[in-house]
């Protein structure tokens, strides 16, 4: 048990923590920039479809940054990936739900 403590602490010794911190700062700057970008774009009043794709794209990039670096997903254990992939699959099913509902009924909306 104590050996595991040691393992844990030495694996992350000061040097690469400093590296981590530098990364966090860059990510922070990137996120700020992207935030400004989305808002700016929204003022261009693009056609809805366009606007949605752009906004969601930027949001996804931001999300990836947060998940990847702040949540350390770029260097996570396989097991966590497995759980998240499974979740992602069902998440997609959930997102498909409204689309199929609307595209595929033989009823006519009033």
């Amino acid at each position, binding site marked *: 048990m104590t050996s595991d403590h040691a393992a844990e602490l030495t694996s992350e010794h000061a040097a690469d923590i400093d590296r981590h911190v530098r990364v966090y700062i860059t990510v922070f700057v990137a996120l700020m920039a992207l935030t400004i970008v989305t808002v700016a774009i929204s003022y261009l009043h693009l056609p809805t479809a366009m606007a949605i794709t752009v906004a969601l794209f930027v949001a996804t990039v931001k999300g990836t940054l947060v998940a990847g670096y702040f949540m350390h997903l770029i260097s996570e254990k396989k097991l966590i990936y497995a759980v998240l992939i499974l979740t992602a699959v069902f998440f997609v099913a959930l997102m498909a739900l409204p689309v*199929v509902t609307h595209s595929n009924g033989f009823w006519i909306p009033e």
Partner: protein
Amino acid sequence: MSQPGAVAAPALHGAHEAHHEELGFWRKYVFSTDHKVIGIQYAITGLLFLLFGFALMMLMRWQLAYPGAALPLIGNLLGEARMPGGTMLPDFYNELGAMHGTIMVFLGVVPLAVGGFGNFVLPLQIGAPDMAFPKLNMLSYQSFVLGGLTMLVSFLVPGGAAQSGWTSYAPLAIIAPGQTMWLVGMIFLITSSLLGAINFIATTIQLRVKGLTFMRFPFFVWTQFVTAFLLLLAFPPLEAAAVMQLMDRLAGTSFFLPSGLVVSGQVLAVAGGGNPLLWQHLFWFLAHPEVYVLILPALGIVAEIIANNTRKPLWGYRSMVYSLVFLGFMSFIVWAHHMFMTGMGTEMAAFFQTTTMIISIPSVVILTALIISLWGGSIRFNTPMLFAVAFLPMFGIGGLTGLPLAFNITDIPLHDTYYVIGHFHYVVAPGTIFGLFAGLYYWFPKATGRMMNETLGKIHFFGTLVCMNVVFMPMFLMGMAGVSRRLFDGGAIYDFAQPVLHFNVVSSWGAWTLAIFQIPFIFNFFWSIWKGAKVGDNPWQATTIEWAAPSPPPHGNFVEAPQAYRGPYEYSVPGAAKDFTPQHEA
């Protein structure tokens, strides 16, 4: 994270000799964090709710058998608002129906199968000292109790309990009285299940003992593991839906309310623009996986008991495990087979019919494997085994009658008739409930150190088996004749129902007799806690690790941490000294 609030012996067990720091009654039995105590709390509460749900149903069965007739004695006790002069009012009937479904599913079977058996057995079977997050475990139970109380109290508030079915379909659920408490209760129950699921998965992955690889898991552990994933990922959408329905009821939103609703001549004053189908999608996205949550733990129990009492390994263990995982995965993409009559286009219908057909295959594989496991065995017919064996054909009937429902075209005459009621009761009542009874008889000695009485057990079994079929078999015939479910008068006003109406009487008497045959069980259960025959740690001569612990297991479960050296079901190994070779024996 040491757990002071825990005890060696289960709550039920009076004098126990295990050494540990003495705690006050409350910390010991009520706010305990010991997985065994929590498991037993869950089990008892679940059983009581099962009994309550059954009681509600027996009231309904009176109205169904003798529509409009005053119910002697009990009738008048229930008050003018529900049964004036002993005759039932339609809204009370609807309350009973909705609450019977809700209670049986969410407050009866799930707590007993997952909360009870899962909590008590799973850590023992993987050789763990406790669950990974004992405090979370306690919270989960408390949240469940809160949910249960909310549901119970809802009978007493003005407007009464929910009366829109356990499916709580909008818009009815939004304009009808009673649903608010139901939704709040559901949110508690969902939270409870989510906490539980996290705990089960983490425990299974992290706390299994040395040498216990996934392919050495007892099948029961596998079923609990898959079940936990179903709960974890399918429940949140319903939680979201419940929140939205609450908003519709309390904040006047219209998530599920389209524009231009006219209720009893009055145009409904809401913004509109919502979609009633959204609720159905979100509900069934949970509720289909939920039905597998109801069956899988029972399947696991049955597998354990069959292996133990045939005295031979399960046949095709691997294929069973793969089927189980596949089944769990598929159960997320079949939900719309409950919505075939909502006007689906060809593609969507085709998709969901196909997935539903596909999902029936793994069930067939598992059941077949279990039946084949009997071949070549040396079968002991003790009470747990009787229930376990009876489970197979009963689930068979329930499962097979799922097939005509699974085809959109044949679902047309059968949808929302008693045929559906028959179908799922065969899987949940003589199916799941049998599995759970089997488990109770099987693990009772582990929890208390005492056996339940065999004779009473056999009476309980044969009585229950016969009555269950008397109750549910007629429902298929009524369904075929086209009698809708959720009918206050059991279909009495319809001409086309007349030829089958007498079956209502048959079912009802079946149900009441069924109740009588539960008395030996209830007596047996409590009597054996104190008076049952004392037995050793491994009365069934089983191989899985839970039997390595003393009965009842002390706090921390095992005297010294066990290890797994082989697969779970090494019975009658050729050349072995005795006819069982435990996993934990080097």
